[in-house]
C-alpha cells in the first residue's frame, strides 16, 4: 500500500529560504504530518515544525498545503493523487521563525486586549443556572482550537501588515461574540469590538469560515451578529435614549465614534 510521496517543503528562516524537494515513504491512511515526521526522523532531523495532539484538537500544526491553510494532522494523503507533489509552506500571514514554524505572537497580544468574563453573582445555593439552549451559542465558538488558520487566511491581516495594529481578526471576533452571548456576563464589549478590535474592517468574505477545521460558522454566527449588535448600539435611538435615562454604566462605555462599518 505504501508509496514514495514527492514533497516540497519550505526550509529557511526570517532571512529567507526556499522549497526543498524530498521523497518520503508513506503508508496507507497517513496524513501530511506523518510524512513530515518521517522526513524529520530520517532525512532532516532539524526540520522545524509545531505539533502536539495529532488529532485536530490542539491546533498546533497549521500550515499551507498546496497553498491552502490547513492542519497537517487532519489532511489525509488519500485526498491527493499518489503522483501529485505535495507542497507544504508556513502560514503566510505571520513572520517565519524557521521552516514551518511561524511567530504567532500577534494572536497572543490580541488575546490580552480582551476583557474576560465577569459574571453576575452566584445563586443563594452557591451555584449558577443557565439554560442549555442559551449556552449552546457560546459553546459553538468555544470549540475554537486556536489554530489561527482563520487569522492567517483573513485578507485584512494577510494582505495588509499595517492592519494588524487595529484589527483583532476572526478568532477574536468569535471571542467577543461568545462573551457577548454569555447568559450571565455583565460586560458590554460592543464599543471595544468596534474600536480596539476593528470588527468594522471585516467585509464578510467568509474566508475564515471556509478554513475553520472545527466547522465553526465564524462569519454567520459570530461576526455578522456582532456587527449588527455594534451597529444597533450606535444607531438605535431607543437604545441610546435608554442608556442615557437608565445610566446602564455597568454595560460599558458607549462609543461616540463611527468606525468604517
Amino acid at each position, binding site marked *: 500500500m505504501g508509496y514514495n510521496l514527492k514533497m516540497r517543503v519550505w526550509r529557511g*528562516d526570517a532571512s529567507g529560504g526556499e522549497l526543498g524537494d524530498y521523497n518520503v515513504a508513506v*503508508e*496507507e*491512511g*497517513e*496524513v501530511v504530518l*506523518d510524512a513530515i515526521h518521517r522526513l*524529520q*526522523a*530520517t532525512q532532516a*532531523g*532539524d*526540520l*522545524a*515544525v*509545531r*505539533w*502536539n*495532539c*495529532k*488529532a*485536530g*484538537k*490542539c*491546533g*498546533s500544526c497549521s500550515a499551507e498545503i498546496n497553498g491552502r491553510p490547513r492542519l497537517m494532522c*487532519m489532511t*489525509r494523503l488519500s485526498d491527493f493523487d499518489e503522483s501529485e507533489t505535495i507542497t507544504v509552506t508556513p502560514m503566510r500571514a505571520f513572520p517565519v*521563525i*524557521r*521552516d514551518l*514554524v511561524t511567530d*504567532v*505572537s500577534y494572536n*497572543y*497580544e490580541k*488575546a*490580552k486586549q480582551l*476583557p*474576560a*468574563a465577569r*459574571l453576575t453573582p*452566584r445563586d443563594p445555593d*452557591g*451555584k*449558577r*443556572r*443557565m*439554560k*442549555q439552549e442559551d*449556552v449552546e451559542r*457560546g*459553546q459553538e465558538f*468555544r*470549540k475554537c*482550537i*486556536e489554530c489561527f488558520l482563520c487569522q492567517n487566511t483573513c485578507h485584512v491581516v494577510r494582505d495588509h501588515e499595517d492592519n494588524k495594529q487595529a484589527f483583532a481578526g476572526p478568532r477574536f471576533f468569535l471571542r467577543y461574540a461568545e*462573551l457577548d452571548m*454569555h447568559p450571565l*456576563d455583565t460586560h458590554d464589549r460592543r464599543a471595544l469590538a468596534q474600536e480596539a478590535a476593528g470588527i468594522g474592517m471585516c467585509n464578510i468574505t467568509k474566508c475564515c469560515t471556509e478554513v475553520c477545521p472545527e466547522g465553526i460558522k465564524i462569519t454567520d454566527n459570530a461576526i455578522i451578529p456582532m456587527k449588527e449588535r455594534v451597529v444597533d448600539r450606535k444607531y438605535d435611538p431607543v437604545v441610546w435614549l435608554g442608556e442615557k435615562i437608565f445610566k446602564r454604566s455597568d454595560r460599558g462605555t458607549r462609543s461616540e465614534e463611527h468606525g468604517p462599518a
Partner: protein
Amino acid sequence: MTGNRTDAGVDTGIERHEYDVVVIGAGGAGLRAAIAAHDAGARVAIVCKSLLGKAHTVMAEGGIAAAMGNLYADDNWRVHFRDTMRGGKMLNNWRMAQLHAQEAPERVLELEEWGALFDRTADGLISQRDFGGHRYARLAHVGDRTGLEMIRTLQQRAVDLDIDVFMEFTVTELFRDPSTGSGGTGGRISGAFGYWRETGRFVVFESPTVVLATGGIGKSYQVTSNSWEYTGDGHALAMRAGASLINMEFVQFHPTGMVWPPSVKGLLVTESVRGDGGVLKNAEGERFMFDYIPEFFKKETADTIEEAEGWYTDKKNHRRPPELLPRDEVARAINSEIKAGRGSPHGGVYLDIASRRSPDFIRRRLPSMYHQFKELADVDITQEPMEVGPTCHYVMGGVEVDADTEQSIVEGLYAAGEVAGGMHGSNRLGGNSLSDLLVFGRRAGHNAAYHSMRTKQRPTVSAEQVKAASAAALHPFEVEGGENPYTIQTDLQDVMQRLVGIIRTEAELRDSLAEIERLKERAKRLSVEGHRQYNPGWHLALDLANMLVVSECIAKAALERQESRGGHTRDDYPTPDDGWGALNLVLTLPSDSDSVDLKHQPLPVMPDDLKTLFEES
C-alpha cells in the same frame, strides 16, 4: 506574557529572571497553580514547552469528576472518595483522595466563574455524565471536549491576571543551593535552567520555589494517546534534584484507543462512548465484558444484559454494566479477547454505539469522536462500530508529595497533576484527572507562594551550576557521527511496548532493564545536526535522557512488585496480595550514580472513620 528577546540589546549568553514561583508546565495543573500563586501575591512565571493553550489537557474528552450532586442528590464527597480508592485498588494516598473528593466541586464552579460553558441539566445546573468506576453520574462536561474548555478557561484567566508566560521553553535542570535549608544534602530549591526552543538561548530562573506540572511519560511507549511533550520531564527533573517517585509501576492503558489507520493508532476514544451507552463486542458479536467481572467488583456490576440495560435509566434498582468497570479491568479484558483470536480485522475489538443510540444523540454528545472517526478513519460512528484497543494513556506514578501541600521531599519543590504520585493509587478513574489538576494545582500554587514569601534569605544559583547545566545541554552538538536521537527514541518505545506493557513477566522485565541499559549507553553518544534555533533533533536529544530514566523507574518497580494490581499486571503473579497492597515502591536517583534506587515504604494508614466507608457495601 514574555516573549523571546532576540534584539541586539541582549548580548550576554544567558538571560536571567527572578520570580517567587516558577511553574513548569501549562496544562490544567500548571495554569491552576500559577493562578493560585498569583492570587496569593507571588510573582509567578509559567514555563511551557508548547504554545500556551496546546498542552495535553486539551486532549481530555470526558469530563471533570466532582460530586456536585446536580443529578443525584445522594452523591457526595464520601461516595466519590470511596469510588476513587476502590478504583485505585486501595493503594491511593487516602488523604489526597479525600481532599480531591472534597474540593473538586468548588474547583468546577470556579471554572464556570471564569467563563467555562458546561453542558446543563434540565434545571440549568452543570450537567454530569456517567463514567467507569463512578457510582453516580458525576462528570461535569462540555460534549466530549471538556479538556479544551478547561484549558481555554484557565488560559484566559491567566492572561486576564497578566501572569508571565514563557512559551516554547524547555527546562533542563533544577538548581538547589547547598548552603541553605535542612532536609537532605542538596539544600533548598534555588531555580531552574532551560532554553528557548525558538532560539536555543539559555535562561536561568532564580526562584525559591518550583512547581512541576509537566504531565506524563506516554511517549516512551509505541502506542500511546500522548503527544511529543510527554517525555517525563518533571519526573526526571525531580529525581535529578533529589526528590523521590512512587507508584511508577502503574501505567494506565486506556481500553479504547483507535487501532486503524496506523497513523492514528493509539489516539484516544473517550470513555464517554461507553458512559453514554456504547458497548464492547468481539468479532463474534458477543458482549464479552460479562465474562470479565472480577471478584472485587462483583457486588456492584450487572451480570446479565437485562440488568445492565436497565441501569442507564434506573440506577437505583440496577447494577452497572461491566463495560463501565475501571479502565484497568476493561483494558485487560480487551487484551485477552484479542489474544484469544476474537479481535477485529485491525487487531482491536468493536465499540458499538451506532446500534444503540440515535445519530442525533451521538452527534450531540460525542461530536469530537464523530469528527475524529469521520475525518481520520472514514468511519461514521452513527452507522457502524468503531475498532478500538488499549493505548498507553496515563502514569499513576509520580513525584512523592505531601498530601496537603504538594511539596516533595526537596524543600521548595512542588508537584501537581499527572507528574505527582499517590492520588490515584494503582489505577485512575476516568474524570479524576481533570479534577486532580484543579484541586492539587491550586494547592501547590498556594503553598509554593506562601513558602516563597516565608523565605527570608533567598537561595542563590552559582556560576558553576549554570556553567555545568549549559555544558550538559550543549553536549549533543559536540559529538560527531554519533547516534540519531529519533532512532533511539523508536527503539526505547519498542522495548517499553514489548516488555513493559499491559501484561508483564519477570523474564521480560529483566530483558527490558538490560535493553534500557544498552540504550543509556547509546544515548551518551547522541549527535544532532544543525544549530540551536528551533531544532527538534536537539530538543529530542535532551528529552531522551528523561524518557530513559523514567522508563528505568517503570521497569524496575514493575519487576519488584510481585502481584497484579490496577495498572500493573504480572502474568507470573496474577492476583493482588495484601502484603504488597500495603507498600509503595519509592525510587530515587543517587547523585553519584546514573542508575535508580528502589526501596519499600509502608502506605499511609487511613483513619478509622474513613475506613468505615468501605464496610458498608
